[in-house]
């Protein structure tokens, strides 16, 4: 029950002036149910990586296994794979095309060969999951606001009931509130179902709050792969490759340097606040004790 990549290499436009190694020797295992963040700079290969997971692009060399089966093997049902591994592209609203939102969301399930009532039921359920207001169901998707379009597009993939949901920069171009809304909804989805969620982003701040594992991509290969705390402990190295740890990490390190014993592994504002409070209380008690 997992996706496994073994020594995956991918080269764009081989043997031309535009040749570019986009992935080099990637080995990863993604167990079912994890909430993963993939982070990296523009051009680090993260978008290329996720397109391998549902077989949209074929690795130049190496193998991708889904539930133990090689997806490059002859006769492998790629269509089936794509409905199990749902991929939401960057700016997914650019793929909307139907005359109403509901119909557009039905496109995926209809391609799976489901009867119409089932499609509509799934579409309604998916739209509800992403918090899309019901009064717009019959509107043209082109008349919606940016955030609503994005929700509709994400629902279009969710309606296919994927077991793995991959989102490429789902918050790009949204305002802070829209960003938080969408990320919270995704987190809730992950809690409610047993879906694997893979969130691609270039912002640590976005990811730190939600995910249980972070994969850092740099120059077409995996730089770090581990729990957020572990990854952020390399904050100096992350900075060297142009990424930054969450602001909290910097504050905690600064506090520690000025002599306050805080927990350096805090990654969210809440954790940091607790840790600071605890250490202040402790320090307070000690001073009381000496007096």
């Amino acid at each position: 029950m997992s996706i496994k990549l073994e020594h995956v290499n991918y080269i764009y436009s081989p043997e031309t002036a535009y040749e570019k190694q986009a992935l080099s020797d990637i080995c990863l295992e993604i167990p079912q149910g994890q909430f993963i963040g993939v982070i990296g700079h523009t051009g680090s290969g993260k978008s290329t990586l996720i397109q391998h997971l549902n077989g949209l692009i074929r690795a130049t060399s190496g193998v991708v296994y889904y539930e133990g089966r090689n997806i490059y093997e002859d006769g492998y049902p790629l269509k089936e794979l794509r409905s199990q591994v749902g991929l939401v592209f960057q700016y997914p609203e650019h793929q909307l095309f139907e005359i109403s939102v509901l119909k557009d969301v039905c496109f995926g399930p209809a391609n799976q060969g489901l009867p119409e009532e089932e499609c509509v039921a799934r579409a309604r359920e998916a739209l509800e999951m992403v918090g899309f207001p019901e009064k717009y169901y019959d509107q043209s998707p082109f008349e919606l606001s940016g955030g609503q379009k994005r929700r509709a597009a994400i629902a279009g993939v969710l309606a296919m009931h994927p077991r793995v949901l991959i989102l490429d920069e789902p918050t790009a171009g949204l305002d802070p509130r829209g960003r938080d809304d969408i990320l919270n909804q995704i987190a809730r989805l992950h809690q409610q179902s047993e879906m694997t969620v893979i969130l691609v982003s270039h912002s640590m701040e976005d990811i730190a709050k939600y995910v249980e594992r972070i994969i850092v991509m740099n120059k077409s290969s995996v730089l770090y792969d581990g729990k957020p705390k572990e990854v952020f402990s390399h904050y100096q190295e992350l900075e060297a490759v142009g990424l930054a740890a969450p602001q909290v990490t910097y504050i905690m390190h600064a506090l520690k340097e000025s002599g306050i014993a805080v927990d350096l592994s805090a990654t969210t504002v809440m954790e940091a606040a607790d840790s600071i409070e605890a250490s202040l209380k402790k320090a307070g008690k000690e001073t009381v004790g000496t007096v």
Partner: protein
Amino acid sequence: MIRDITIGQYYPANSIVHRLDPRVKIMCTLFYLISLFLFKSVLGYAIALLFLSFCIRLSKVPFKFIVKGLKPIIMLLMITVIFNLFLTVGGDTLIQIWKLRVTTEGLRTAVFMAVRLIFLIMGSSLMTFTTTPNALTDGIEKLLAPLNIVKAPVHEVAMMMSIALRFIPILLEETDKIMKAQIARGADLESGNIIQKAKSMIPILVPLFVSAFRRASDLAMAMEARCYHGGEGRTKMKPLVYRKRDAAAYAITLVYTVTAVLVGRYVSFHIWIF
């Protein structure tokens, strides 16, 4: 997949052909194209082939890349060959199947037509491979400048052409992205009869049109914001200036055209029927 379409794309390399003045490249390509239609014998095509391979070698564009540009015209090529092969009358009959007759004249025209088309595409794609869209427009604008006297909107036409050329790769990439997004949603683009196939294009064409219009309006806005007002009184940062190598290129092309046309037309040299 769709990235393989190479027509109208620029291929960056550091070669003398890339550095030539765009006007030279346009004029030379024009001469070359005209010359292709003036040959009568195989000798002319041989000289054209020599000239073309010489230019390709100089340009450092991989031969494979240029051949790839032929892919989209394969259908056209086949139709031309088949029509010419069976419908040309005259000459001796080579093969006869039912009412269809292949004559020596038919075979001759078909082969020459195919070679001509291939040379045509290769020659003109060599020009676009070695010239950036911007340089190309500059060249066209300069060459057509005399038409300004009759109040033809030369600058505007040149600008439209360069925008169109510039947008080819962008729209291709966009198509690729949209196709992938719809395939990820289970769209089936390959199977089915012609009507089903046409229907399955809707999820790709609608978003593509929407994005093309969006891009066009963004671009118009950006041009407006930078006070673009057409060609009048507009100066260039890098005006086109002829250099020695440009004169040399003109000379070589002229020599080629004259020899090829003279030899191709008047030296009677025949291999079998060609």
